[in-house]
């Protein structure tokens, strides 16, 4: 059991969705239907699926940002739901998140140095001088500089903003990072930079990634293991090599066959 740094079993989450012409009716949507996954330390587990498959709900539920209907999330052997508010906050230092939209996820009124340093303040880590040094070191690791600390998010390109988002997550030296579509909003040349940066930081800092994505080409490059989600269920999971070479489920086969340019690149 301690082979896994983060594991989830039997996760269930149901939403009520309004239906009918004026929304008087309601439907129950099973966003998560008995989902179990496990992340090995230092590895990357990708969760792939199309829109509405439940992959982003899974990310939020794993971090207890959203209450679950049923199921258990274990982080380093501790049940996250059983922790007190204070203990959960302390655990969150080690469970960080990188978001999809680097435009929406950075406060436009805060300077980059403050955005990246905010987590250190919240968790009471170090004094002002130490925090500043930590923030600077982290920014340099993601390819930014001391000059950037005093700038505001709008002064940066999409790729640079995603670097800021990564610095903000990693400055706390987390063990697990949940990346929710971190490169989907980026141009392909910037996407390649960010993917390589994530891989490099994973090696250097011993991070474990849960990588949410709809892009099977990106997943092939970043992940060690893959879980394929469809309508709230994990329909297939396994190693990247195995699953891409020999998909068992029809849905997975269909997804892989739909990758644009597959025949060109296979040639």
């Amino acid at each position: 059991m301690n082979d896994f740094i983060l594991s989830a079993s039997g996760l269930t989450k149901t939403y009520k969705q309004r239906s009918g012409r004026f929304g008087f009716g309601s439907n129950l949507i099973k966003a998560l239907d008995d989902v179990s996954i496990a992340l090995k330390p230092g590895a990357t587990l990708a969760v792939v699926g199309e829109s509405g498959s439940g992959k982003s709900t899974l990310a939020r539920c794993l971090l207890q940002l959203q209450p679950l209907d049923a199921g258990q999330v274990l982080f380093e052997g501790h049940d996250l739901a059983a922790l007190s508010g204070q203990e959960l906050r302390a655990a969150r230092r080690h469970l960080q998140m990188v978001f999809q939209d680097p435009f929406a996820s950075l406060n436009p009124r805060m300077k980059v140095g403050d955005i990246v340093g905010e987590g250190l303040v919240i968790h009471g880590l170090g004094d002002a001088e130490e925090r500043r040094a930590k923030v600077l070191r982290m920014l340099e690791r993601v390819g930014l500089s001391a000059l950037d600390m005093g700038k505001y998010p709008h002064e940066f390109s999409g790729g640079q903003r995603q670097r800021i988002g990564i610095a903000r997550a990693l400055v706390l030296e987390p063990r697990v990072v949940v990346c929710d579509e971190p490169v989907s909003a980026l141009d392909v040349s910037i996407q390649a930079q960010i993917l390589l940066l994530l891989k490099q930081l994973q090696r250097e800092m011993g991070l474990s990634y849960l990588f949410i994505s709809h892009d099977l080409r990106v997943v092939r490059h970043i992940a060690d293991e893959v879980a394929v989600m469809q309508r709230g269920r994990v329909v297939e999971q396994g190693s990247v090599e195995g699953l891409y070479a020999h998909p068992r489920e029809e849905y997975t086969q269909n997804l892989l066959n739909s990758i644009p340019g597959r025949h060109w690149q296979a040639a």
Partner: protein
Amino acid sequence: MADLLRVEKLTVAPAADASRLLVNKVSFALAAGRTTCIVGESGSGKSLTALSIMGLLPRALQRLSGDIVFQGNALAGLSNTQMCDVRGKRIGMIFQEPMTSLNPVLSVGYQIGETLAAHLGLSGKALQGRIAVLLERVGIPAERANSYPDELSGGQRQRVMIAMSIACEPAMLIADEPTTALDVTVQAQILALLAELKTRMNMGMLFITHDFGVVADIADDVAVMFRGEIVEMGSVGDVLDRPQHPYTRALLDCVPDAEGKKPLKPIDYAWLNGAAA
């Protein structure tokens, strides 16, 4: 064979700053029954090129120079009224967002009908019959004509947009990132539908995309745009498998492959600026 569309030395800049060339001397030609993909990253000028052809550039931008010749007639310089006869009738258009392109309070059948009524003057039974034919041609059951956009999935909405764009049997279709907002399985279906319609109706298709995978699936010819210029143009086989320009090569190195065999290599812009100069 005469070209369906010929764009020559098209140059676009902001009205306020004519020295900032957003589209710089872009020239290409498109023949009936062929698909040309314009591929590039954001800001490369690919969408502005498409908008220029349709005379839909934002007011803040202007076409500084260049000719756009469609079926032997110059489009640039046509009045708005004259352009309305071309747009939607002889040149169909599809855009990225099928959610925002449809009016939420009108049934999809009505919206397809608007195009037919405006350009072909159809009404009554003839109009309804044509709407049914168009819906079935794009793979939607004819009875969905009474559905509203929110009752359809993203893929179905894009099919409705395609039905509208081909309603008047245009000679040419301009598709600007039509599958970017769609799930991968739906994307594959829409690409197959567009390819089929293109062949069946012998349309020329100008397809704008940022995705080389999509290019490989749909293009006959490819133009690669970078900083407002076409840096490389050729058949899909030549450009994708034997790229000549350093930018094309660098961009292809950034595309992750589905096999995981190829290491990713980000673009070294400092090197590129030297190599391209």
